């Protein structure tokens, strides 16, 4: 059957460039390259390689899946911006997949490592947020869940592509980064002078 949808998933939310190409349920190609920098230069050539390894081209794609974070702010934007440009150029849907969904496994608490001994995690019944690693670990233990946050899990792009292939037909919103942390910015320290009436 050739009518199964062809979906390309990718992610640059941490120190990696990850991509996977799926035809229906079947993984045609998958790659995870670790790198601390250079994702912006590497991502598009990597996606082209993934396509050509499977003898596919951009026009063959039915949908895109992209990791929206949480994770490295710049990294998230690299993949999301590329996905939005590709979706516009190919006129196909791009589905944003968050890092918790992409790491979902039975019996474990999905969590994404963050700087300074913190993690992004969604504790049972709570909205995802940034918290000390210890807090997430304790909560996982209390709920009888495994806890092993990984920044670059081997199957991340494949998971993103799988989720996208289920959702793309009904996706309406373009992918948007999931930061879970406000931008660092301090209000202006300049204080306006007192104005005297003339």
């Amino acid at each position, binding site marked *: 059957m050739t009518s199964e949808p062809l979906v390309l998933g990718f992610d640059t939310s941490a120190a990696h460039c990850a991509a996977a190409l799926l035809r229906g349920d079947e993984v045609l190609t998958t790659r995870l390259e670790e790198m601390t920098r250079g994702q*912006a*230069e*590497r*991502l*598009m*050539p990597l*996606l*082209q390689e993934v396509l050509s390894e499977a003898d596919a081209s*951009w026009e063959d794609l039915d949908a895109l899946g992209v990791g929206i974070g949480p994770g490295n*702010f*710049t990294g998230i*934007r*690299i*993949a*999301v*911006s*590329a*996905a*939005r*440009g*590709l*979706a*516009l*150029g*190919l006129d196909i849907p791009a589905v944003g997949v968050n890092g918790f969904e992409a790491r979902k496994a039975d019996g474990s608490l999905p969590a994404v490592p963050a700087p300074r001994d913190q993690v992004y995690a969604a504790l049972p019944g709570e909205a995802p947020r940034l918290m000390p690693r210890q807090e997430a670990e304790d909560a996982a233990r209390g709920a009888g869940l495994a806890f092993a946050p990984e920044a670059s899990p081997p199957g991340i792009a494949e998971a993103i592509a799988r989720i996208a292939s289920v959702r793309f037909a009904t996706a309406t919103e*373009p992918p*948007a*980064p999931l*930061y879970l942390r406000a*931008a*660092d*910015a*301090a*209000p*202006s*320290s*300049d204080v*306006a*002078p*007192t*104005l*005297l*009436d*003339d």
Partner: protein
Amino acid sequence: MTKTLTILGLESSCDDTAAAVVRQTEGARPEVLSSIVFGQTELHSAFGGVVPEIAARAHAEKLDICVRDALAEADLTLKDMDAVAVTAGPGLIGGVMSGVMCAKGIAAATGLPLVGVNHLAGHALTPRLTDGIAYPYLMLLVSGGHCQYLLVRGPEDFTRLGGTIDDAPGEAFDKTARLLGLPQPGGPAVQAEAEGGDPKRFRFPRPLLDRPDCNLSFSGLKTALMRMRDQIAAEKGGLTRQDRADLCAGFQAAVVDTLAEKTRRAIRLYMDENPAQPTVAVAGGVAANTAIRAALETVCAEAGAAFTAPPLRLCTDNAAMIAYAGMERFRAGARDGLDLTARPRWPLDTASPALIGSGRKGAKA
């Protein structure tokens, strides 16, 4: 055979998200078919300046929408384009990177060639887009982030005659507005106040006029203004409206005098090129200041050079200038790969010594 090119441009290096479509038949005047700019002023207003992370976040979710709008306004589709041009630096790297990635996505998807453009080249070539002026011309680029005199000899041939060694004048206007409780952006607010003020009451420094070069400095001017403000406030317990207007007028006069004198010197250097039709062009948001513009016109008239300033919407950050600069590069055969790098620092003139930024990371702009 004359070749007509239609170029899509993207710009996201500071706090404006922009996309545009520019078309030109070789030998004819270029046409701006659309130019969409989404500003972010309100996102940054509480912070007294552009916050890079806030800017980057906004760009990432606006760029593709901006491109759709630009295509719709031009009544064209991506199939009608000949290339995609994108600002690849210098600027706030998060925003530049979002623009570069979005452009790469469009280029990969459509097979269109990708052309990376230096944001400063976009400004510097705008007089050719708007007025078709010939090389070589003298360009004063004066904005919130930049201030430099460029001798423009070709689409990739720039000599920097001088520039600021610290802040850009636009930054100084913004800072002045903040110090005096005026709204942002500071340029229009300070100019409006200055109109009712006495420029002679407060004498502010004219830095570097004692040096023969074309370099400028605006950092000390901000400090001088703050000291004067504090001195008045200490005496009276605050500022009267007249004090504020006089401070604005004195500040603006110092900027005008400095730019006029350094422009005079830059024109002298430019005239050594023996240009057939000597032309001085100005671009950047500060070029909108009427006092500065009037002084520059006078200096040019004295020197026998024509003065041109693109309309404001093409003077401040926009993507039509990026599409046009990309077109000049494209006509010259330039193509970039999908591994194009976004650069926070990218001087137009790599031969002249750096004015700002040094060491491992090199010159800023």
